[in-house]
C-alpha cells in the first residue's frame, strides 16, 4: 500500500529551512572558538604565533601538552582541585540531604519557619566582608576548610532535594517502616536514600562542577600557593601571564616565549577536559535536576 504523506504547505517548508539555518549558525558560533582552541593547542608554537592556525592543527605537535603535564604548578593545582571536588561534594551532599529530608516531611514541626529562614538567605546576604570576618574568626583562612565549608550548602540544591523527597517517596512507606519499628535515621538510610540515587547523582554533579570551576573563594581566602585550586593557577598563568620560565640562554628564552602562547591553549584543554568528558553522560540528569527544582513542592 502506498503511504500517503500530507505535504506541509510551502510557507511552512520555507520556514523550517530558515529555522534549520538559524540552528546551524548557533552551532557554528558555539563550536568554532572551541575548535580553534583545540587546534591551536595541537599546533607548533611557530604556526600559532604567526597566526596560521584556524580550525585544524598546523604542524602537529604535542610539545605544549608535554610541557603542561610536567608543570609542577599545574599538577599541584590539579591535585588540589581533585581534593576540593571530592571532599567538598561529600560534605555538601551530606549537609544538603540532612536539611532537605526533614524539610520534606509533612509532620516535621517547624518546617515552614526553617524554609523561610533558608529562602531569606537567597534574597539578602551579609556580603563579602562580613562573611570574610566570620571565616577569619573561625581560623579557616589559608586552610582547605575555607573552600569546603563557607559555601557548603546551596539553597537551590536544598529546594531540589526537598522537592524530590516530597514527590517521590510515598507517605505509606514511612508508615510501614514505622510499624516495623525503624527509627527515623534508619528509615533515611535504608529506605529513602536507596530510592534517591538519581537525586544524589544530580546533587553530587552540581557540587562537583561548582568546586571544579569556581575561583572566587580561593582568591579571597587563600594566600598559600600550595593550596591553590586549578582555577587560580589558570588565572595566574592565562590571564595574569605569570608563568615562571627556567630558561637560561637567549635561544631557549625565545623558544619559551613562543611556547608560552601554545601552552595557554593546551592548559585550557587540559583543565576543561574532566568536566567536558563527563558532561555528555550526565547532561540528562543535570537537566532533570533543574526541572525537579522548578516544580513547586
Amino acid at each position: 500500500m502506498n503511504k500517503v504523506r500530507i505535504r506541509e504547505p510551502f510557507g511552512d517548508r520555507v520556514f523550517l529551512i530558515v529555522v534549520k539555518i538559524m540552528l546551524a549558525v548557533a552551532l557554528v558560533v558555539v563550536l568554532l572558538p572551541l575548535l580553534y582552541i583545540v587546534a591551536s593547542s595541537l599546533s607548533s608554537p611557530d604556526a600559532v604565533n604567526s597566526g596560521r592556525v584556524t580550525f585544524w592543527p598546523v604542524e602537529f605537535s604535542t610539545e605544549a601538552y608535554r610541557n603542561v603535564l610536567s608543570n609542577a604548578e599545574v599538577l599541584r593545582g590539579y591535585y588540589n582541585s581533585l581534593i576540593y571536588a571530592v571532599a567538598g561534594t561529600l560534605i555538601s551532599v551530606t549537609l544538603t540531604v540532612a536539611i532537605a529530608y526533614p524539610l520534606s516531611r509533612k509532620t516535621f514541626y517547624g518546617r515552614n519557619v526553617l524554609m523561610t529562614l533558608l529562602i531569606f538567605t537567597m534574597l539578602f546576604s551579609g556580603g563579602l566582608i562580613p562573611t570574610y570576618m566570620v571565616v577569619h574568626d573561625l581560623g579557616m583562612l589559608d586552610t582547605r576548610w575555607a573552600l569546603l565549608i563557607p559555601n557548603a550548602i546551596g539553597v537551590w540544591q536544598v529546594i531540589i532535594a526537598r522537592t524530590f523527597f516530597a514527590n517521590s517517596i510515598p507517605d505509606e512507606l514511612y508508615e510501614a517502616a514505622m510499624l516495623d519499628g525503624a527509627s527515623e535515621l534508619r528509615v533515611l538510610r535504608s529506605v529513602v536514600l536507596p530510592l534517591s540515587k538519581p537525586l544524589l547523582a544530580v546533587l553530587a554533579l552540581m557540587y562537583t562542577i561548582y568546586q571544579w570551576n569556581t575561583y572566587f573563594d580561593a582568591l579571597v581566602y587563600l594566600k598559600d600557593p600550595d593550596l591553590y585550586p586549578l582555577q587560580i593557577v589558570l588565572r595566574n598563568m592565562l590571564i595574569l601571564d605569570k608563568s615562571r620560565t627556567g630558561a637560561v640562554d637567549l635561544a631557549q628564552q625565545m623558544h619559551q616565549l613562543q611556547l608560552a602562547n601554545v601552552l595557554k591553549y593546551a592548559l585550557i584543554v587540559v583543565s576543561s577536559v574532566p568536566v567536558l568528558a563527563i558532561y555528555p553522560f550526565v547532561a540528562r540528569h543535570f537537566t532533570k535536576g533543574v526541572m525537579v527544582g522548578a516544580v513547586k513542592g
Partner: protein
Amino acid sequence: MFPQIGARAPRRSRWSQAQRSWRLHWQLYLLVSVPLAYFVVFKYIPMSFSVIAFKDYSPVLGPWGSEWVGLRNFQALFSNPVFGTLLKNTLILAFYLVLASFPIPLLLALALNEIRNGWFKRTVQMVTYAPYFISTVVVVSITILLLSPRIGIVDANVLGDPSYFRHIYVWTDVWQTAGYSAVIYLAALAGIDPTLHESAKIDGASRLQRIRHVDLPGIMPTAVIMLILAAGNMMAIGFEKAYLLQNNLNLAQSEIIPTYVYKTGLINADFSMATAVGLFNSVVNLCLLLVVNFIAKRITGSGLWR
C-alpha cells in the same frame, strides 16, 4: 445547616503539635541541627556583622565594640564621585545582560522544538549546552586569546577599550549560557498539550502562527519566572567574570560594585566602607526583586510567590 460529619478535631495547640513532632522526629531534629548551624554561622552571623557599615570598624574592638558613626560611611560613599560611575556601570551592565540573555535561549528552544528528533537536533543541543560546564576563568581566557591583537581574529585592542567591555561581557555570557537556559524552555514546550497543536493544524494555522498562538502562551509562565529570577539577581552580577576581564585600561566601564567591594575591603582593608557598599547593593537588589515580582504578578498573574 447540617452538622458536618467527620468534621476535623479542633486544631491542636502549637505546643502539643511541637511536642508530638519532637517525640516522632527527635532524630531528625538532631540531623537538622548541623546544617542549621551552618546557616546561622555563615549566613545570619555575617548579616548581623553588617552593622559595621554604620561603625568605624576596628579589628581590635570587633564588630560589636567598634564605635558607631551613624550614616557617615554612606554619606562618604554617596558624595564620592566614583559612586555615580559605579552605580551606572553596574546597572547598565545588569540591564544589558538581562535583556540580551532573555530572548536568545527562548528563540533557541522554539527553533529546536520545530525540528524533528534526529542527529542534527541532538548535536545542536549537546554543543550549545557544553559551554555551561566550562569555568569562568577558561571562558575569559578564550575570550582574551581570541581578541588579543597579536594572535587573535581582530586588530584593534578591544580588551583595553572601555566601550567594548560590556559587549564582551554580555555576549560571552550569552555564548556560555544560552544552551543551558534553552533546556528549561524546551521542557516547558514539551509540557504543552499536543491536542492544541493538532486542532490549530486542522484550522490551517501555519508553523509560525502555531508558535505565536500555542507555544508562546504555553511557555509564558516559565519565561516570566526566568525573567524575575534574572532581574532579581541583577545586582548580584558576577564578580568572577568582571574581575577577570578587568584591566587598567577598561576600568572606566568595567569597575562595578562587586569588584569595588573586593578592592576596598580586601585590598585596601577598609572593612566598614566595603560593607556599606555591599549593604547598599543588597538592599537595591532586594527592592528590584520585589518590584519585578509585583509587576509580573500584575501583568500575568504569576509571580515567585502566590
